[in-house]
């Protein structure tokens, strides 16, 4: 029987680079009631192909359904589920922290601990760029929140499989 525990799953999709592809994929998610936790899209080394990474919340039976439904879209070339074991997942965030309380040094110290990069500084704020896994970013955010987050933007998770093969060459997997 299906595992009914709600978990986070990362789906990596190769899609034809047409206008409207994103709408097809996202539309499928919304009309079937699947929750998107994060979404990132970009070109690939092949001009005709884009790659979409979608993080969803659900149990394994939902994920199986989603994968099957997404695979039916004509513009979708390949779908794979990326886990901590079989792939690498990373996200980039830009975060503007308040330094009004004279805690600029503390912020810089935190940023060094997390290997974040300072990308902008003003009299009252400091803006950092940080990349990493969901866990790393979450811990950073937990520690940074007390300084006062002025604003925050995230790219959403992007992911790639481990090993020699590309997603394009990965055979179809039946869940």
């Amino acid at each position, binding site marked *: *029987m*299906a595992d009914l525990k709600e978990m986070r799953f990362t789906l990596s999709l190769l899609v034809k680079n047409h206008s409207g592809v994103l709408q097809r994929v996202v*539309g499928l998610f919304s*009309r079937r009631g699947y929750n998107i936790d994060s979404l990132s899209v970009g070109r690939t080394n092949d001009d005709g192909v884009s790659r979409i990474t979608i993080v969803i919340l659900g149990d394994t039976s939902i994920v199986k359904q989603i994968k*099957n439904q997404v*695979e*039916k879209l004509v*513009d979708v070339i390949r779908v794979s589920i990326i886990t901590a074991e079989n792939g690498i997942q990373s996200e980039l965030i830009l975060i503007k922290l308040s330094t009004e309380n004279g805690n600029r040094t503390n912020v810089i110290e935190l940023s060094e601990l997390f290997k974040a990069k300072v990308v902008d500084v003003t009299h009252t704020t400091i803006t950092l760029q940080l990349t990493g896994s969901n866990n790393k970013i979450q811990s950073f955010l937990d520690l940074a929140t007390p300084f006062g987050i002025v604003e925050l933007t995230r790219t959403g998770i992007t992911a790639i499989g481990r090993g020699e093969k590309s997603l394009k060459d990965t055979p179809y997997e*039946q869940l």
Partner: protein
Amino acid sequence: MELTGAKIIVECLIEQNVDTVFGYPGGAVLPLYDALYDKSDKITHVLTAHEQGASHAADGYARSTGKVGICIATSGPGATNLVTGIATAQMDSVPLVAITGNVPVTLLGKDSFQEVDISGITMPITKHNYIVKDVKDLANIMREAFEIAVSGRPGPVLIDIPKDVQTSVCEYKAATPCEKELVFDRLSDESLEEAVRLLKESENPMCYVGGGVIISDASEKVRTFLDLIDAPSCVSLMGCGAIRSDSHRYTGLVGMHGSKVSNVCVNNCDLLIVIGARFSDRVVSKASSFAKNAKIIQIDVDPAEIDKNIATTCHLLGDINVVLEKLCDKIKKPLVHDEWMETVAQYKRRFPLLTNQESQRASEVIHALNDILGENDIVTTEVGQHQIWSAQFVDHKNPRRFLTSGGLGTMGYGTGASIGAQMGNKNSRVVNIAGDGCFRMNSNELTTISKYNLPIVIIVMNNHTLGMVRQWQTLFYKGHYSQTTLDTPIDWLLLAKAYGVEGRRISPGDDAKKILEEAFELKKPVVIDVEIPLDDKVFPIVPPGNSIKDMQGVVEIDLI
């Protein structure tokens, strides 16, 4: 050779052996209609009263012939009028290609006159769709659309073609259409072995057959398979015609309006073999109790149907023809379930499909119709009580002869579908069984039936109410008949006359068969008004939320 986009569309239709299209002209498809004018010797264009009628006609044509149905509409309202028909086709996996015009590319996105984003609108209700912005892509998109419409699990494809793409010129080279490939690349030997093991272990196997069997023309194979494994079978609404209803293996519909026999067998069997069916909520009712004593083998071409509504023990992915052939090869020796088949026969005697209500007029008329209709004649229906009565009482003999909107439940489907069915089957008699509520919706298509003098017989089961909704109001809403009474004094025969269509009436006490025979002999369109009592009901029924074994309105005969 260099051709305009409009001519390329028509040439591509001819490439695909299209000889009949259904549509309605308008500003954004003027170039296309001009090209069709030039090729009217090769392509018959059927002008409907409304674009919705064209989409249902294309659907009826596709379901009854197995070919791709084509409908054409102009931009804006023309395109949106196709939407219900496209959604109907999507839900029932019918191969359609819908062609719409749009405003010129330069005017797209500017809220131009009669502009609508039909590709955006139809995204959730098509298998795929296109907007063609460059005439150079047009021919390949047309070909791809046909391929997608029929491949794997069929469905509708829409191609939106701006007017300037229709008038631009480009090089056109004729191509031959691709042969349809039977999909079975995901069918594993292990799953086949497991299925064979389950089949051999089973003592009380039961089949549940759906529309997939009809679409993939696998009825013959299913019938052979049933004999080989010696099992009874029920059908979903979409599966009507896959098995002859006079077969001793046939137990009728399953689910909400299933026969008691089907529902009991599904409940009692130890193995349920599901072929081209999708466990619709109208079949399953309460999912947690559906076939809960059984292991389940599901055969389907669409991986997304596996474990979607009901978890299966074993699934066989692929075209039903291929899967059943391989399965039969592996089983080799016929299985025997004499005791189980005898139990089923007894159930059939104990729970006959009879209605225990004040009148049986609708079923009497359908029985009279059964005496007249032959192997190749076609019944279309609308949606509601008359639809279920038709599914229950029509003698189903062959696939593609019973056309009904199962998934979407589109009232007004049948009139359009009957037009398509008749255009595609000139030698078959076509009967549309309607209710008065449905017939009001698309009776404008009498225009089309009259214009082309199609000898369609429309039987209006007239109870002056939206019967199915009223039935629910009676059973579950304390008899509050909110907006379901259709007491406007419409004379359907006068309406028919206005369109130049013959009219007949079957009143209580009339010889229904004689009147029907006379109607068919006219070889002209005829509307027959059949007065039926207000409160006749569709029975048996599984009240919403119940297990399918808990039915109301079952007639039980004491066998002792």
